[in-house]
């Protein structure tokens, strides 16, 4: 049996062999691999790029105190970005499944329409969920827009849901029974984290503190964005990446407040708009920053 980490090694090697840079996870909390600068910002503009990384993705509302065999507060996504998308991208993707030992002549693969959209990021794309014997194992998206900007080159984004995929390969009914490494289960590594974050997110997180933090991060991102000057000769050294970190902080705080039940449905749309405004602002400034100052 291949362990959790062995399968990850193989997938990374597979995409490294196809020209992808192997990045490490981004060190700010995110809800999905798409939100990392390696995707969100790199897909903008005319520069080709290929990257793959495993991103722990936090969804506070999905936490189940470690009790539910299929639902996690934090799951791992293998995120692959190929910009622009090669013509044989689907063949390449299917071969990646073969590379981790899935004999596709003996399994059923279907591509079911599933268009991805993130209102918070002003991003959307067209694609499928890839079903393997009835299990959704990958989200496949051709990005069309990011930060409200039409993309110059259309990247293919592959997001493998690692826990699901590997539980499938290891024939485990619970993600906690996945063998992470020989003799070490997924539960050994992660169960405590699932339990404690569920308690925090659902029961103990201080709502006023989180709102305060939200405001601070929002303010800092907004302050930086307001200071960005497209005409400045020094614009390339302007800290847009740190500004984006603050946007990510806002997004995670929003999700935590939401799971805490602190955001009414009416407020929701408004808060999403606030985060979106910052994300779009960073994307636009970022695109501008890649260009020389107009003479």
């Amino acid at each position, binding site marked *: 049996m291949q362990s959790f980490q062995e399968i990850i090694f193989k997938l990374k090697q597979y995409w490294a062999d196809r020209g992808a840079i192997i990045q490490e996870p981004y060190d700010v909390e995110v809800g999905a691999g798409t939100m990392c600068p390696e995707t969100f910002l790199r897909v903008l503009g005319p520069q080709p790029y290929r990257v793959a990384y495993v991103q722990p993705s936090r969804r506070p509302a999905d936490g189940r105190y470690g009790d*539910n*065999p*299929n*639902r996690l507060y934090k799951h791992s996504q293998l995120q692959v970005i190929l910009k*622009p*998308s090669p*013509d044989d991208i*689907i*063949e390449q993707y*299917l071969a990646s499944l073969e590379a981790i030992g899935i004999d*596709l*002549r*003996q*399994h*059923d*693969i*279907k*591509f*079911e*329409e599933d*268009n991805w959209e993130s209102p918070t990021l002003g991003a959307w*794309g*067209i694609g*499928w969920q890839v079903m*393997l*014997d*009835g*299990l959704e194992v990958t989200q496949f998206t*051709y990005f*069309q827009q990011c930060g409200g900007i*039409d*993309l*110059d*080159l*259309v990247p293919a984004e592959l997001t493998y849901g690692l826990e699901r995929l590997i539980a*499938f390969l290891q*024939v485990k*009914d619970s993600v906690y029974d996945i063998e992470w490494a020989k003799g070490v289960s997924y539960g050994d590594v992660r169960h405590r984290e699932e339990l404690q974050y569920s308690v925090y997110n659902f029961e103990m997180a201080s709502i006023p503190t989180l709102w305060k933090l939200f405001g601070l991060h929002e303010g800092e991102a907004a302050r930086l964005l307001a200071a960005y000057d497209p005409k400045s000769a020094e614009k390339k050294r302007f800290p847009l990446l740190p500004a984006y970190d603050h946007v990510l902080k806002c997004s995670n705080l929003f999700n935590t407040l939401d799971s805490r039940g602190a955001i*009414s*449905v*009416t407020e929701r*749309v408004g808060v999403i708009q606030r985060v979106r405004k910052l994300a779009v602002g960073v994307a636009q400034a970022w695109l501008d920053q890649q260009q020389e100052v107009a003479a």
Partner: protein
Amino acid sequence: MSLPFLFEIGVEEIPDWMIPDALENLHVLFEKLAIPHESVTLDATPRRLVLRAEGLPERQADSQERVLGPPKAAPPQAVEGFARKQGIKPEDLVVETTPKGEYYTFTRNVAGRLTKDILAEALPGIILKIYFPKTMYWTGRSGPRFIRPIRWIVALLGEEIVPFELAGVRSGALTSGHRRLGAKEISVTPADYVQRLRENYVILSAEERRNRIREGLAGVRVKPDPALLETLVYITEYPTPIVGGFDPLFLELPEEVLVTVMRHHQKYFSVEDAEGKLAPQFATVMNIDADPEGFVRRGNERVLRARFNDARFFWETDQKKKLADRLPDLAHVTFQAKLGSYRDKTKRVMALVKELGGKAPAVRAARLCKCDLSTELVKEFTELQGVVGGLYARAQGERTEVWQAIYDHYKPESMEDAIPRHLPGRQVSLADKLDTLRGCFRVGLIPTGSRDPFALRRAAQGVVRIIVEGKLDVSLDALLAPDGAGHARPLQANPFTPQPPADPPSPDLPTPDVGAGHAPPARPDPLRDFLADRVRFYFKEHRGFQYDEVNAAMAAGWSNLVDLEARLMRIQKLRPTPDFEPLAAAFKRIHNILAQAGFTGGGTIDQSLLEPGPEQELYQEFTQIAGQPIENAISKLRPKVDLFFDKVLVNAPDAAVRQNRLTLLHTLLAEFSTMADFSEIVTNS
């Protein structure tokens, strides 16, 4: 020489539900080219849209074209110049008389173009014109848009390639087989195309794929599900059904939940046992030829087990809090920002149910009907809203009428779906939909074109069907008044009963379609017009009445839809009788005469002014049949009306006589217009 044409657009997986329309579209676009041909065959799989035609000519027929040269009076240099440009001698020109005068002309023979050239020029445009609800670009910004990336194109006229390029793909003779079981590049001709695909595990014909699924499931008691079957037909190139099982312990969960998980989340057919009860089995369709090791079956069984476990977890969690105790939670669930929470909506629906004559069970159901929105099960399976509420209500001991009304209150969800089974459910469903319609229209959320995020068309269609098919005696006049404010335009707009205008007429406002020229001026009421459209649609498309019958009956009012239906059925019965169309034509004539005279009625008939003969006879006939249904009167009335128009001049020189005749005609028309405005009937005469 007659040639076969093969055209295949190779695409990454197209959403199944878009494929039949796209094929239809492709066909129309091809026919627009007007290239002569015999049969056309259209086929598709998720990865290819295919048009095949037989008997195309190699080239178009030759034709002649007349080229207009300079006028006869033009200087010789101009004439020579023209001839030179055409490549002929000046003496070959002919002088012709045209509407503009005498001109030199020349008749040129135009050789018919090669069909191949016409196709090569047209096909890229045809591909890009195929309509899809949502498209993408993939070759870069401002690149071509299609439903998914185009990866290959086969375009063959006979053995020859129709050459063109689109999105970096050159047309050719190479198709592609099944993603995993077939070859990536397969050389084809129009003659061997289908067979070559079959050898590479692509069954081109949807019908054949459908049959393959049916035959594969022949021994299994699968619950019929035509829509799911179509999805599976268009999501596979080589469908093979297999049957799996699940732990019978899951059968303790409501069947609705199990079926939804299987149907909507996994695209499985459910299976019944010999008694018609849900069996612990499912059928799924693979996109490969076989599952000899059982990998696919076991994989699907595990996925289903995980899904069912989730559902059981939610079911058990939800039972801990009764529906009635969830009512306060609805204050935190927004219905629509401007229309408040579901708590607010619940209050309005309860009031409306009472207004509709709902008794205690209906009011109780209205109170509880939205409470399932806070349950975990509905959050997970939103399509089960209502149904879950009904199931919980039953489990929590609510009366049968109550839980069934909750269960049914989203019905009918489509034209095919049944209306709620009992009166309380109909009342709750009607109230819920009316509230949504009134509220949304009041705050300006009015559907435009294909944008209808609140599914108001479906809601309005539901309103119409529940009232008509549920035989509910309700007045839409009263109900359509926004939030009961009571300023709706009356629907009982009898065009011959003068009504005081609700507002001063404004030239900017569109005139209502009812009894054109006669209806009282009124403020525009989009909800009323919206509903009128649905009423029309229902009776025309769903019930098969002629459009003019529907217009005629509606022009006499449609506040009471049950009454409208009864009148429509009468018209339908009357229509084939010999007197009907001539009388309808006569009514139309009367209508026009009154409109031209600007006559709106109001007077009484002065018998002394009636001329002996046809006019008096018509009057006498009328007084005898007045008050009777038109069915009894029509054969007697028609000859009198015909005679009247034959012999009597309505537009008499004497003003009093003229006025009296107009009054007679108006009275006659009004008498029979309570059933329908017959002037709306389209007659052949």
